């Protein structure tokens, strides 16, 4: 039945360049848009690398995002625990998914997020002040990239920022593929317990925030409220933080591109989309399981078979984005799938874009001499994490 005979082991190791998808994925994409793959636990699935095919799968309701669907592909045991035990709507199908997503869509409307710009600018300016005050070097990840989106999502949700160490370390554990099943279970329970308790306090003393509004609703169970808070808290800070750090590194490696953006902040919108495309930090792909036999490209995915949609190769489609894969901030990259596609497409994308636009333009403007304090090849990456990122980014200015 299959057209190609090759099989690829997932996840595949990176090559020498930290900004290029693992060479095996690129090679697979050259061979066919859909090929056979094997997961770490030995089960078979399909790897989808082509742009049209990735969009087709993610937009097709016959592919389930519910991890309890037979055949759903897992890259680790911890992921299996997180996704199957008490899933949030990112791992549910419609109509349940739509019902829960719509509880929070109003808080992420383009207009609402645009109104947050001045507040975010203020948070970013203070983060630059704090990072640079009285010292000449810092870890851009811990001292800048992580606090900013954490503060923003805490304000939106109504989570006290003082608790950031708790939720930041639990999120890291949950998104790490090396986390064992019992570890994931414990971290999940701890964070859910924290949010359930917070929601209860909001019910008594409501504030002007998402968690208070959710806690006041009669059509949500306590478990659903905590789970919505959990999803927004984890996705809201971790991806943007990682994206900030790798974007800064990408710009440090390409001073010409940094200079373009520094000179013309109007470029920020397009530049952020190009960085999202180029870096595709959801680097391990998105999993789905077929609930019917579905033709994808040249192959038929049978009922109960899993697929992994590789966003990074789709984002390097030569017809759409040109043959030159390197960073080009003037490229029209708006068709990228770094936020996914279909009904699960990132709910926080407008927020993430606005945060990144402000963070990058502010950093370039205020710290024009920003540079690494270690050789680039000594940096370590979170390659086992669902979200690609840097452990540390030591910089001076």
């Amino acid at each position, binding site marked *: 039945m299959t057209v190609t005979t090759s099989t690829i082991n997932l996840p595949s190791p990176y090559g020498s360049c930290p900004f290029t998808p693992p060479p095996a994925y690129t090679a697979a994409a050259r061979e066919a848009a859909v090929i056979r793959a094997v997961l770490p636990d030995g089960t078979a699935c399909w790897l989808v690398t082509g742009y049209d095919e990735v969009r087709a799968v993610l*937009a097709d309701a016959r592919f389930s995002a519910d991890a309890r669907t037979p055949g759903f592909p897992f890259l680790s045991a911890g992921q299996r625990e997180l996704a199957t035990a008490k899933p949030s709507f990112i791992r549910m199908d419609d109509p349940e998914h739509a019902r829960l997503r719509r509880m929070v869509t109003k808080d992420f*409307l383009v207009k609402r997020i645009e109104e947050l710009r001045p507040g975010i600018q203020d948070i970013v300016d203070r983060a630059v002040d704090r990072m640079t005050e009285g010292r000449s070097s810092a870890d851009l990840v811990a001292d800048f990239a992580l606090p900013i989106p954490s503060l923003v999502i805490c304000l939106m949700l109504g989570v006290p920022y003082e608790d950031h160490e708790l939720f930041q370390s639990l999120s890291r554990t949950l998104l790490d593929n090396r986390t064992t099943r019992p570890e994931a279970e414990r971290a999940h329970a701890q964070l859910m317990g924290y949010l359930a308790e917070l929601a209860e306090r909001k019910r008594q003393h409501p504030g002007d925030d998402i968690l208070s509004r959710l806690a006041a609703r009669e059509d949500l169970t306590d478990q659903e409220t905590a789970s919505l808070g959990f999803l927004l808290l984890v996705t809201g800070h971790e991806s943007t933080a990682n994206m900030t750090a790798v974007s800064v590194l990408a710009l440090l490696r390409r001073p010409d591109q940094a200079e373009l953006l520094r000179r013309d902040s109007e470029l920020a919108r397009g530049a952020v989309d190009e960085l999202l495309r180029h870096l595709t930090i959801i680097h391990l792909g998105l999993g789905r399981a077929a609930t019917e036999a579905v033709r994808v490209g040249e192959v038929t995915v049978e009922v109960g078979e899993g697929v992994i949609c590789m966003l990074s190769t789709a984002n390097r489609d030569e017809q759409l984005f040109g043959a030159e894969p390197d960073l080009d901030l003037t490229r029209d990259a708006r068709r990228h799938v770094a936020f996914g596609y279909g009904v699960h*497409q990132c709910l926080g994308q407008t927020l993430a874009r606005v945060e990144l636009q402000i963070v990058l333009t502010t950093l370039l403007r205020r710290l024009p001499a920003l540079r690494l304090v270690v050789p680039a090849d000594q940096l370590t990456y979170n390659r086992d994490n669902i979200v690609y990122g840097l452990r540390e980014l030591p910089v001076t200015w």
Partner: protein
Amino acid sequence: MKAQGTVTTTRTPHTPRIPPLPPAQWPPVLRSLLADSRQDGPGRENLFGTLAHHPVLAHAWLSLARVLTHEGTLGHRRRELIVLRVAHRLDAPYVHGRHRTPAADAGLTAMEIDATAADLATATHPWQPEDRALLEAADLLAVNSSVPEKLWDRLAHALTPEQLVELLVLAGQTATMCTTLNTLRTPSDSAARQPSLTVLLDRDRCCSAGQCVGAAPEVFEQDESDGRVALLDPHPDARYADEVRFAADLCPGGAITLLDPEETPHP
């Protein structure tokens, strides 16, 4: 010589001297300014498209316009009277035509709006004394004539010093706008309007990702009551057709369908 002659013969009085830029080429801030000031009335694409040739100036211009429209002290009715009269006096159909909607919103009747384009001395419209003073002032200010003592006293009797200063600046900005658009022969938007495709929405499929608003803010918005997509214009003008096609392609939920006489140029 010959080449020059060719240029002048093809340039009819209706061809703009500097064509307005299409929205796709405006700086994004300008597009969001237009989208955000939708309540100020339709038909400003060509004005914005003209200013888009000079983005920094556009920004300054529109800041002043915003203050006069939303933070002014004259009140909407007086403001629209002055704008209409200056536009009539300077023979600027773009501005007069486009201000009919905001003027009606400000409480001017259709008869009053028509009367702003008639001769004050001979026409029979029974203007209230204050309206009349404003119209007479607009006639003079439009062409930079001085305001005689008697007329000034009538104005000063009705208006505060703050309102008087604003009146002069408002008349001046309107006159500049009329002169600019007339000199460039900028066509009015209604004359240039060309519906191209029809947009159909399946709101049940909307997942509020916001892609359509990012791609074509002139055509799509998000309904604040339920967070889902809504249409500002089901038959968008031809100048937005490419962006609308782009929005339909980006929509992750497949909520946008186009009845498009030209096939979607998906690569």
